[in-house]
């Protein structure tokens, strides 16, 4: 039990934050929001997966990936391919010139299912692929980069280019990928209607539970020696290397893990929203995931979730009424968070709770005359 408490929840503060978040998404949102809004929140929460992955990779590991959209996309497309195949049964697609293949393939004069689509007929394969393909992809990039000690801005740029390549490829290869429109009209999972209100609510809760599980797993990593090594590497990479560690392996592992959780987010995105398209893969979504993490506080797993929720609520609210203002605001947010709030919401919260405690201390000191002398030096000390 104490292992759970320290390792997974991160002690008292961690537990409070975790329970608050769990209450908010599992109790408050479902009670307060209608089905449409709740589905919207489900979508936002799927973005929190890559945001959390960036807290690990960037906040703690010091390695900024501008390509988390790649993995989010791979997960999302994996799920979409399975659902699309189910939606394209010969009965459903009888009017096509080649029945039994996805509609966009038919429109693009394909007459048979491409080989790499075949295995996605199996749900088990799909689930495994969602977890494994992104990790293997990250492993390949990671080995190539980290073993050669490429990091920092070079890693950021290369991952950005890879996400651009993937987007251009998806958009360009319409017949195989659905092109710019993505993979749409996903209806059933094993014959079960995924567009019903019940299904949407269920996906919301599954997303919540997966998200909480991912937070606990990440906490476990961060509280282990691995977590301290991550911080140590960010600070003095050479010292870690000359303490007998193969630094690259640690970076590769955390990159693969971050890819895997991003992919889980992507898969849940497809289920919750009912389609997947290249606009969630490329440069812009990838960098938006960074800003979710930055606004939440790059060192706070839970902050990343709040960062996601806040920005996406803001985006929805503003882009409905003032679309022009939103881009200015978003741009300003990037600048402000870097220049004035490098620790994001989590940092603000810490400062703020610190101030409240201080003020409380000061007020109590006013009222309890006996202790005034004892409290005053303590106040100075806490500055």
């Amino acid at each position, binding site marked *: 039990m104490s292992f759970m408490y320290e390792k997974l929840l991160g002690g008292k503060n961690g537990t409070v934050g975790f329970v608050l978040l769990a209450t908010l998404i599992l109790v408050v949102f479902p009670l307060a929001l209608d089905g449409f809004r709740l589905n919207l929140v489900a979508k936002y929460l799927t973005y929190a997966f890559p945001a959390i992955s960036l807290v690990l990779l*960037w906040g703690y590991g010091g390695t*900024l990936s501008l390509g988390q959209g790649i993995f989010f996309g791979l997960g999302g497309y994996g799920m979409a391919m399975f659902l699309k195949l189910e939606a394209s049964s010969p009965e459903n697609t009888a009017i096509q010139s080649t029945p039994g293949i996805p509609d966009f393939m038919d429109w693009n004069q394909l007459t048979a299912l491409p080989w790499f689509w075949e295995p996605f007929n199996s749900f088990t394969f799909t689930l495994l692929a969602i977890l494994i393909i992104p990790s293997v992809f990250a492993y390949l990039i990671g080995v*190539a*980069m980290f073993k*050669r*000690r*490429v990091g*920092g*801005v*070079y890693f*950021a*740029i*290369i991952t*950005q*280019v*890879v996400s*651009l*390549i993937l987007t*251009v*490829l998806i*958009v*360009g290869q319409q017949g195989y990928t659905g092109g710019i429109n993505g993979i749409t009209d996903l209806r059933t999972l094993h014959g079960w209607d995924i567009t019903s209100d019940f299904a949407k609510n269920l996906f919301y809760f599954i997303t919540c539970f997966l998200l909480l599980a991912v937070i606990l797993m990440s906490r476990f990593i961060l509280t282990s020696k691995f977590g301290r090594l991550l911080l140590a590497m960010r600070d003095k990479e050479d010292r870690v290397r000359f303490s007998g560690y193969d630094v690259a392996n640690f970076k590769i592992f955390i990159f693969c893990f971050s890819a895997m959780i991003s992919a889980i987010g992507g898969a849940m995105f497809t289920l919750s929203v009912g389609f997947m398209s290249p606009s969630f893969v490329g*440069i812009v979504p990838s*960098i938006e995931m*960074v*800003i979710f993490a*930055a606004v939440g506080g790059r060192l706070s797993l839970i902050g990343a979730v709040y960062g996601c929720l806040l920005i996406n609520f803001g985006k929805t609210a503003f882009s409905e009424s003032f679309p*022009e203002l939103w*881009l*200015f605001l*978003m*741009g*300003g*947010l*990037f*600048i402000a*968070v*870097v*220049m004035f709030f*490098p620790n994001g919401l989590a940092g603000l919260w810490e400062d703020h709770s610190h101030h409240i405690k201080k003020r409380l201390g000061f007020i109590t000191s006013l009222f309890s005359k006996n202790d005034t002398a004892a409290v005053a030096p303590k106040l100075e000390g806490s500055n």
Partner: protein
Amino acid sequence: MGGYTSSELMAIFAMQGFAGISLFSVLLLMALGLAIIFGQMGVINMAHGEFMAAGAYTTYLLSTVTETYFPGFMPYYFLVAIVAAFFVAAALGYLAEWALIRHLYKRPLDTLLATWGLSLIMQQAYRSIFGAREVSPALPDWLMGSYQPTDMIDIPLNGMFVLALTLLITGGVFYLMFKSSWGLKVRATTQNRVMSGAVGINTKKVDRLTFALGCGIAGVAGAAFTTIASTGPTTGTLYIVDTFMVVVFGGAASLLGTIASAFSIAQAQSILEFFISGSMAKVFTLLTLVVILMFKPEGLFASKVRR
């Protein structure tokens, strides 16, 4: 390539090669600015494309004003526009350095995010001012038309002009960075900031002017860009990744590498485009670059130094 005769192939290579030269010119001008900012200062400027757009819009504004009020001046306005594009973009860059960049020199990844924010703001500003539609300045007559050495090859004059302009600017940058005393100060500052300050170089001023210069060259790239394509609010973003690849591939600190890398990337892209679709040409070019960089991360022309 089976369906072409060898003389046809030659013509295709020549024409696509010349088409590639326009792309080369824009990429090189963009990359020169970025190589100065990234290679010399270590700053990742994600808004670099928007500084290019600033130059392009300046050219457009000047052409509109000239056309309306001084139509007789039309043949010459473009030369003025190039200079104006430089100074507008440089002034914006100067401002950005002062307001933003100088606070972030020690945090390169944060500069990346902040300049991304800046690029969003600039894009939206262009959209609010000039509208979402793409605009093109009216080009002077002498930039129209083409030169035909054989009846199969057709070389547009604007491409030749842009190439000449690019070579001129490249020469200027070379002189400035490697032959002038100012260039010496810039290189000294980047190699050892503290020491440079100690020997009396005003490093803050050097930083600001270097950044402004880089942005100014992007502005000239924008003016050049208007001769080959029209300008929209997001024009800059289309080129920023390619430009970064040019700089990284060339070896960040090497101007010679930048030129070679801009040339090979532009030519590969342009010649491939004739045989496969534009998007696949881009995929192949970028993928090749990424693979090469994975095996040679320091770029093509990085010198071996003691670290």
